[in-house]
Structure formats: C-alpha cells, structure tokens
C-alpha cells in the first residue's frame, strides 16, 4: 500500500510539471513527449515545493488536498485550451533512428543495469549518509512533524540544524512524500534521487537524439550512467544530482534555443529550471548567473538591427523568471538572517582574490587528483582534456561554443568559490571537490556528443 502511495506521489510531481509544460508550449510544441515527461518530474517537484513554501507566508498547514488543488485547476485550464485548439499540437519530431542493433542492446543493457542498481542502492537503506541526514532529512522530518512551516521556523527551529541557509526544495519534497504516505518512511522517500538520475539520463538521451541517431545517443547516455561517482550520488540523499538535473535542463534548453530563437518557450523552460537550481542548492545561483552571461554573450555576438528590443525583452524576462522563483526563499533568508557559513561574499573583490594566490596550487592539485582518478570518474575527465587539446579549434565553433563556455564558467566559478571560502581550504576541497564536478558533468557529456558528431558515424 505504501509503495502504491509513493508511486501516486511521484505521478503528482509529473502531473504538475506536465501541466506547467503544456501551458508553456500550448501554442508551439517545443519538446517531444519523453522530454516532457523527464522535464516534468523536476519541474513538478520544484513548483510543488515552492507552493508548500507559500503556505508559510499564508500561515496555513500542509494538506495534500490543498497542495494538489492548484494543479487540478491548471489541468482544467489546459483542458479548455486543448479542446479550444481542437486537439493536441504535434510533438517535436526527433529525427534519425536505427543504428547498430547489437551495440544498441549492449548500451541499453548497461543503462538499465546502472539505473536499476541506482534504484536498488537508494531504496535498500534508509537515509544514513552525513549531509543527507544532518542537513536535509532532519529538516524534512521537522516540517512533517510540525505539519506546516511554523511561523518561528526560520528564526528558531532551523538554527538547530546544519546549514540553515540551504534551500528547501528537496527537504520539502521529502515532507510532501511523508504527508502522502502518512508516515515518516525515510527509506521509500529516497526514490526521488534515482528518479532524478533516470530523468537526467532520459533528458540527455532525447536532447542528443535531436541531432543524432539512436546508437549515438545511447552511447553518451551510457557513459553518463556508468560514471561511478554520478551513480553513487543518485542513491545517497545528497542534492548534487538533483542540482545537476536542473543545471543540465536549464543549460541544454538554452543551447537549443540559441539554435532557434523562435521557440521562446525553450528560453522560458531554461529560466524556470535555472531558478529551480537556485531553489535546490546555493550553487544553483551561480548557474543562473552563468546562463544569464551566456544569453548576454549570445546577444552581443548575434546583434542585428531591429532585434535589440526583442533581445532586451528576452534577457529581462529570463532574469525576471529566475528572480520570481528565487524571491520567496531569498526574502526568507534575508529577513531571518540565514547566512552561509562557507562563503563570505564580501571577499569577492579582486584584491582579496589576488591576495589568495597561494590557494591556486592546492585547487589545481585537487582537480588533477579528480581528473586522473578513474575510481570515481572512469576516464571521463581524461577524455575531456584530450578532446579539449585535440579539438581546440572546434570548441568555439558556432554550435558548440555556448556549451564550452558553460563548462569553463562552471570551472571558473568553483575555483572562485575556493579562492574566497572562509573554510579551511584543504577540508573544503576534499569535502566538495568531487561533488562540484557532478553539477556540470552532464553538460560535459552533452558537449562531447556535440563535438564528436562528425567523428563517430554510428
């Protein structure tokens, strides 16, 4: 019975996300069916938890009925749109198929094994890993036991736990599942993490299928699924993989929009996903800035007379969407004085950064350790560096330059974080170095797929 309830809870996330996507793309279908399903999962979680946060402002208690009502209402609106249009708009067409059948079966088996194993590893244990328990699950438990976000939660209770300034997307998602199950089952609740894993693999596969065949897309999806570190973080209750999901979705839909700016819905989905990245982990805000920078670069390098006004509207809408999603949490953080204990933004000055030049060596050493250590990453970073060198002339070509910049900016952003961290650098590097790389790893795989499409005719 509990498992059935759990599956219904997951379906509610997808239902909510699907309806948001339908509303965004009701005029022009911009995603294929499966892209919508995989994007709907994370989108649904993000919006349902934002809705739960709004209960704090409205001073109302959590109830499943109240949480679901707006999504049923949105469904009715979408139904009216559907019937007014006289049916369903055609889905985005995914070209190419076939490929090497034997290789397809092998790669698909590999993906299935990794996915099933991720579900097994997540669900065989209750919450137990350090951050999962100390930072996230305990907050979810407190909110579930309170049956609401109490008025004094952000000024009192939350300070009992580690990192009170961390966003509540996943803790509130866990609370929602507890509410739905009617019990604090911290084993079943872990299903959300391998589902993010599966969602990310699904999204990666279908965005590669937009420009390549089945075998090619399966190959890169398999590469991502089979990276030990990536798979492990689908099972331990940490938020690095959910963050990777939102970062990837926001980045990849932005890259696709750069190819065809007539599909404004893609830009909107990218903005929403970026906003949800910030609502999942503080690092997500860095990715919002990266995406905004990429749009600014795109506009500067593609400026045409007559389009300036439209570009300005696009950019301000993007920033506004992120801001609207981030505002409730930022408001709470500022008003409750929830301060980050690791990063002091007042250190973000050129003089301070230059004065920390001695930190560069340990940072490089840590990245080197990660890149050359196959235990966690197989040889993905070695391939990455090899391709950077061999294909240096190509990485800034028209169709790939934004993915390249995204990766460089992500690296640069984390180096900057280490330069200004107020924690002991050795400790900070050893506790976060391998996790930060997860955040943009799916974009690295996508970048490889873009880069090698002419080299591999599979």
């Amino acid at each position: 019975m509990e498992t059935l309830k759990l599956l219904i809870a997951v379906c509610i996330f997808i239902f909510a996300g699907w309806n948001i996507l339908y509303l965004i793309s009701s005029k022009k279908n911009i995603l294929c069916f499966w892209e919508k399903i995989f994007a709907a999962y994370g989108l649904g979680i993000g919006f349902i938890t934002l809705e739960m946060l709004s209960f704090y402002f409205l001073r109302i208690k959590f109830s499943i009925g109240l949480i679901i009502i707006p999504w049923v209402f949105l469904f009715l609106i979408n139904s009216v749109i559907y019937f007014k249009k006289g049916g369903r708009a055609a889905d985005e067409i995914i070209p190419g198929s076939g490929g090497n059948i034997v290789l397809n079966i092998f790669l698909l088996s590999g993906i299935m094994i990794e996915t099933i194993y991720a579900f097994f590893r997540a669900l065989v244990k209750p919450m137990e890993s350090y951050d999962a328990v100390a930072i996230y699950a305990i907050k979810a438990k407190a909110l579930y036991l309170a049956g609401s976000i109490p008025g004094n939660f952000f000024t009192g209770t939350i300070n009992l736990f580690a990192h009170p300034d961390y966003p509540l997307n996943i803790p509130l998602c866990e609370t929602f599942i507890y509410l739905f199950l009617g019990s604090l089952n911290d084993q079943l609740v872990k299903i959300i993490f391998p589902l993010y894993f599966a969602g990310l693999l699904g999204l990666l596969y279908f965005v590669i299928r937009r420009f390549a065949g089945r075998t090619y897309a399966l190959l890169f999806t398999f590469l991502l699924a089979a990276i030990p570190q990536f798979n492990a973080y689908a099972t331990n209750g940490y938020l690095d993989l959910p963050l990777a999901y939102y970062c990837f979705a926001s980045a990849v839909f932005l890259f696709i929009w750069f190819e065809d700016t007539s599909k404004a819905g893609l830009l909107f989905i990218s903005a929403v996903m970026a906003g949800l990245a910030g609502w999942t982990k503080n690092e997500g805000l860095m990715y919002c800035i990266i995406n905004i920078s990429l749009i600014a670069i795109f506009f500067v390098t593609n400026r045409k007379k007559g389009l300036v006004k439209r570009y300005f509207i696009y950019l301000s809408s993007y920033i506004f969407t992120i801001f609207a999603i981030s505002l409730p949490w930022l408001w709470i953080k500022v008003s409750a004085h929830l301060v980050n204990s690791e990063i002091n933004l007042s250190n973000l000055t050129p003089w301070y950064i230059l004065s920390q030049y001695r930190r560069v060596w340990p940072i490089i050493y840590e990245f080197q350790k990660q890149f050359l250590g196959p235990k966690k990453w197989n040889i993905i970073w070695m391939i990455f560096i090899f391709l950077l060198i061999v294909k240096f002339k190509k990485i800034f070509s028209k169709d790939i330059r934004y993915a390249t910049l995204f990766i460089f900016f992500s690296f640069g952003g984390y180096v900057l974080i280490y330069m200004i961290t107020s924690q002991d650098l050795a400790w900070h590097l050893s506790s976060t170095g391998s996790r930060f790389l997860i955040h943009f790893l799916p974009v690295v795989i996508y970048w490889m797929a873009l880069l090698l499409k002419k080299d591999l005719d599979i």
Partner: protein
Amino acid sequence: MKTILKLAFIVWIVLWMIFFIRELFLKNNFKDYKILLSRTLEGKQSYVTVDKFYELLSLCKKNMPEGSTYAFRVLEGNFDWSIYKTRAAYYLYPDVESDDPQFIIVYNEPNVMKEGYRIYGKLDDNRYLLNKIGSR
C-alpha cells in the same frame, strides 16, 4: 581519431566492469545488502546506526518526553563518532542537544556519573541514560 575513441571506449568498458564488481563485492556492500534486505524499516535504521547504539536510542526515545534536551557522553574509541552522532540527532528529533541537558546519553563508557543526575534507564554497564534530578 576514430581508433583512439574506439580504444577509449574499450578501456571505459573494462574499467566500468571492474569498478562495478569492486563496488558490489570488494567494498562489503553485497554482505550489507543481504542483511538489509532481510530487515524491516526499523531494522534497517538500526543496522545503519549500529544495532547496539540504536538499541540505546530506542531506550532514550521511550524514556525521554518529546522535546527533551540531551547530551552525549561517548568513548569514541576507533569508530567515527561524528556520523553516528548525526544519525542519533536525526532519530531523536524533536529531542534536541543542549549544553545544559535534561538527559545524558552514555555509550561505550562505564561508570559515568555526573553530579545532579541519576540513572534513568539502562541496557548494560556501557549503555545507559542519566536524568537531571528533578527535571522530569
């Protein structure tokens, strides 16, 4: 280029298999999974918290009124106390840790007696609960 990529793919597959098997068998995970699969949710929580320690936490849960304050007295020995302390805090919530606790949870350390406290519950000489006299 094609040959290099093919070679990289073969190396990838070999390493993938090695690490997959290593993860499953060499890291003792297979043994853990076997035990975990045979347990209920509470049994699993107990397993990941160390059964002996979880028994003590269950005793505390039973005896401490909801919303109590506590502190730990633990002889750490050769185990990583910080992770077990974190799990204990998670299981005991809404009871919370305090510098001036109503209860002291003693694990792995015999003969702890603090002035103003009395033994309130006991599993054995190494696992017991002290309560501040007159606090309950």
